[in-house]
C-alpha cells in the first residue's frame, strides 16, 4: 500500500462527499433528494478511485502523457526553483487580495502592479512607472468611470473613519 499526496487528495474528495451527504440527512426530502442522488454514488466512486490509486501503477504528479482534456503544468528543469516561484506568485496573489480588502482596488492596483514590476520582475523605474500608470488608467477609465462599478473602500479607511 502506498500513500502519496495524490492519494491524500483523493481521500479529501471522499471526505468532501461524505460530509455533504451526512449534512443533508436532517433536511426535508425535497431538499436532500439531489445531494443524496448524486452524493451517495459519488462516495462509492471516490472509494473506487482511492483503491485504484493505492493499487495502480505509480505516476508522478503532472507526468501523464495519455489523452488529457485539461492543460498540464510545464515540467520545470529544477523542482526547487519551481516550488520557490510557485510560493512567490501565490504570495503575490494573496497579497493582491489582502490589498483590495485593506485599501481598496484603486490603491492596490497601482501598488501591486508597481511592486510586482519593480521588486519581482526587477524592471527599470521608467518601465515600471509607465506600465503601472497604464494599468491604473485601464482600471479607472473602464471599470470605475465607464462601467461605474461600486468598488468598496478598504477596511483601513473604515477603521480610520475616512470612508
Amino acid at each position, binding site marked *: 500500500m502506498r500513500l502519496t499526496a495524490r492519494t491524500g487528495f483523493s481521500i479529501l*474528495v471522499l471526505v468532501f462527499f461524505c460530509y455533504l451527504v451526512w449534512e443533508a440527512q436532517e433536511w426535508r426530502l425535497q431538499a436532500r433528494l439531489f*445531494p443524496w442522488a448524486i452524493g451517495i454514488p459519488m462516495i462509492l466512486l471516490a472509494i473506487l478511485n482511492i483503491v485504484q490509486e493505492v493499487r495502480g501503477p505509480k505516476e508522478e504528479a503532472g507526468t*501523464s502523457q495519455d*489523452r488529457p482534456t485539461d492543460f498540464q503544468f*510545464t515540467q520545470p528543469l529544477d523542482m526547487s526553483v519551481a516550488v520557490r516561484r510557485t510560493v512567490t506568485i501565490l504570495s503575490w496573489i494573496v497579497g493582491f487580495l489582502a490589498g483590495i480588502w485593506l485599501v481598496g482596488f484603486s490603491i492596490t492596483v497601482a501598488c501591486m502592479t508597481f511592486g510586482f514590476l519593480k521588486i519581482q520582475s526587477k524592471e527599470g523605474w521608467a518601465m515600471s512607472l509607465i506600465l503601472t500608470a497604464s494599468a491604473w488608467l485601464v482600471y479607472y477609465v473602464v471599470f470605475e468611470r465607464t462601467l461605474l462599478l461600486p468598488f468598496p473602500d478598504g477596511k483601513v479607511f473604515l477603521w480610520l473613519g475616512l470612508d
Partner: protein
Amino acid sequence: MMFDAFIEGLLHVLSWPAFGFLLLGALVGFVVGILPGLGGLATLALMLPFAYKIQEPISAFAFLLGMHAITGTTGDITSILFGIPGEGTAAATIMDGYPMTKNGEAGRAMGAALMSSLVAGLEGAVILALAIPIMRPLVLFFGSPELFMLAILGITFIASLSGSSLTKGLLCGGIGLMLASIGVDPQTGTLRYTMGTLYLWDGLSLGPVVVGLFAIPEIIDLSVRGTSIAETKVEKITGVMEGVKDTFRHFGLTMRCGFIGAFIGALPGLGGGVSQWLAYGHAVQSSKDQSSFGKGDVRGVLGPGAANNSREGGNLIPTVAFGIPGSSAMAILLGAFLIVGLNPGPEMLTKHLDVTFAMVWILVVANIITAGACFLFLNQLVKLTFVRGHLLIPFLLMFVFLGAFAAHNNFSDIIVTVIFGLVGYVMVLFQWPRPPFVLGLVLGTIVENYLWISSSAYGAGWLVHPTVVCIALLIAGTLIYSAIQARRGRSLEEDLEKRIGVEGTRQ
C-alpha cells in the same frame, strides 16, 4: 409570403437607425466579451432599459441581440491568448486554444476560433430560420425526465474524455453538481451548505469560480516558467489564415459542432457553456488520434468556437416560437419583447414574421461585423503573447480580480476566485480534469429541477420512459467505450515499453 418576410427582415436590419444600433451593440459586445468576468448576461440586463428609449422593435433587437451575439466570439479571445475566459461560456476554448498560444500558434488559434464562430453563427441563423415552423413537436417531446438524462449524458460525455481515469472525471462532475446545490433550496427554503454565511444563500456564482479555476493555475504556470505566454519564438506573426483554412479543412466538424450548439441552445435551460463542452467532447471523441488534445490541437478550438455562436440561433427558437427562453440571456431578451410591444409565440410566426427574420439577419450581420473587426486587430492582440510573462502577470491578476468583482459587485466573489484558483491548481497538479467540474456546476441547478419535477410528476416511473431508457443506454455505452479505450491505451503503452526494453537489451 415567407420569402417576402425574409427579404423584408434583411432590409429592416440594413436600414437606419437599426444598423446604427447594431454597430453600437457590436461595439459594447466586443468590449464586454474581452473583459474577463463581465458576462454578456449582465450586460444584457444592464442595457435592457435602453429598449424603452429605442421602442422600435427591430432597432431594439439590433442593439441587444447584436451585442449579445458578439460576446461569445470575443470571449474566446482572452481564453486563447491568456487562458482567462472572457465569458463563463468561453472556458472550453482554453483547453486547446491556450496550449496553441504557448506553442506560438496564437494567430492560428484565433483565426480558427473566429472563422468557426462566423461559419457556425451563420449556421445557427439558418437553423433558426428553418426550424421555427418544425421545432414545436421536438421541443415538446423533451420533458423533464429526458432533459435530466440529457444533462447526465453531457457530464458523462465530458468525464469520459478525462484521460485514463474515468473515475476522476465522473467525480469531478459530481463535485460540480454538489457545489451547485449550495444555497437556499428553491423548493423548501432549506439553507444548504451555506456555512452560516449570507453570501452563500444565492449559491456559488459561475463567473468567479470559472475565472479562478482556469486563470490562476495558468498565471502560476506562467510565473514558474518565467517566459512569455508563447514559449516558441517566431520572427513574424502568421497563422491567422492557417486557422481560417483549418475551419474549412475540418468543415464537417465545424458544422457538426455548430449543430450541437444550435440543438443544445434550443433546449430550454441548457446554456452556452454546456454546448461548448459537448462540442469539445465531440471534437475529441470523433478524432482517431486523441493524443494531441489538451496540448494544442486546432480541432479543440474549432469545436467550442463553433458551438458558442450557433447556440444563439438555437436559443432564439423556443424564445420566439413559444415564449420559453432557451437560456438566461433569452429570459432577459423576452423582457425586451414585452417592452417593445411584441408577444412571443404564434404571432411571431405570422403577424410579425418580418421581425423574426430580422432577428435571423441580425445574427448574420453581427457575426460578420465581429469577425471582420477581430481580424483587423488580430495581429496586435497576438503580439501580447510574446511579451515577457513578468510584464503581463500584474495586468492578468488585475483583470482576474476585477473580473471576479464585476460579476456581482461583491468582494466575497474575489475570495471565491482565489479559493477556486488554489483548487484548480491542485486539480491540475494531480490531474483531476476541470471541464467536468465546470459542466457539473453549470448544470447542477437545472439537473436538480428536472430531477425533482420528474420524481414528483411520475414517481419512479420516469426511469422506464422509453426515451429515458435510450439515453441511459447511451450513457452506459459511453462509459463502457471509454473504459475499453483507456484499457487498450494502457496495454499499448505497456507493450511499447516492453518492446523498447527488448530493443535496449539487444543493443
